[in-house]
């Protein structure tokens, strides 16, 4: 798959995630974060299970064969959710969002640069650093505009 198409798909996934968050936000208000998250995860597991049964080709390696630490990804997602539920009312939405993005990108760059967790190492090039700077500026503008409205 070419890089441009792949990037477009990832951007689209971000948009889909945003729609999901809007729907789930409404749901969470009425039934609570735990219940709305459980629903999201159960529906996700069941629909992925169906897709696997009918469309996934057989693989030589199964989930049971890989080292157990490779299966811990979901724990980080759940911990993230719990931290946000507790922290957002205290630190505020804007600060929490920026802090999350800082953590995400910082850790992302570390994993990429050193090739941690079995990922291919991608050296921190000047264009990558420039991309980060652009994103940082974009965040500043986003929050200035949302503060003025709020």
């Amino acid at each position: 798959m070419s890089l441009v198409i792949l990037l477009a798909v990832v951007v689209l996934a971000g948009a889909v995630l945003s729609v999901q968050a809007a729907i789930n936000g409404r749901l969470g208000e009425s039934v609570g974060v735990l219940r709305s998250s459980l629903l999201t995860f159960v529906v996700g597991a069941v629909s992925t299970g169906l897709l696997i049964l009918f469309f996934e080709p057989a693989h030589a390696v199964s989930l049971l064969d890989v080292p157990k630490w490779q299966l811990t990804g979901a724990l980080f997602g759940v911990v993230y959710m719990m931290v946000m539920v507790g922290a957002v009312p205290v630190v505020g939405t804007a600060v929490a969002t920026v802090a999350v993005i800082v953590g995400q990108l910082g850790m992302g760059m570390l994993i990429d640069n050193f090739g941690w967790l079995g990922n291919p190492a991608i050296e921190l090039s000047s264009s990558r650093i420039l991309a980060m700077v652009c994103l940082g500026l974009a965040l500043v503008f986003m929050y200035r505009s949302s503060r003025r409205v709020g």
Partner: protein
Amino acid sequence: MQTLDEVSVGAPATKSGLRLLLLPLVILAGMGLSVEAGLLGPLGVQVGHLWATLSIFGVGSAILFLLLLFAGPQKGPALTDLPRWQLIGGFLGPMYVVVLTLATPHIGIAMTMIAILSGQVGKSVLIDHFGWFGATRKKVNAERWLALGLIVVALVLIARG
């Protein structure tokens, strides 16, 4: 899963020493999201993208079920009492996770996160401006267009390597 928009439902900020204590925790939580993405990519290559996705949703469901059972709120409306459209969010999550497992081995984790973020920002700016999906048309101010422009520049920089 990472959902920035869900965060924006939160209450206004209060000033206290707790803020400084919580901030590193929030940054750590954000780092956890990249670790999650970092685990997913190699896992997807080994066992298949859908199986990797199932591991996230399967383990997540199990943990949340136990949390809800032993520590969750006792009362509240049942899920079956809610309008059905509010329940479809669960179908969208797997799309996101599958794309994560597909993309990270090729463009890296940091860049995947930037692309995801630009999708989130772009969606809100464009939907507001053009009133797509039945949203009320709002004028999008210059600062948000500038932000979107900068994010597109960032994406172009990544695409060029």
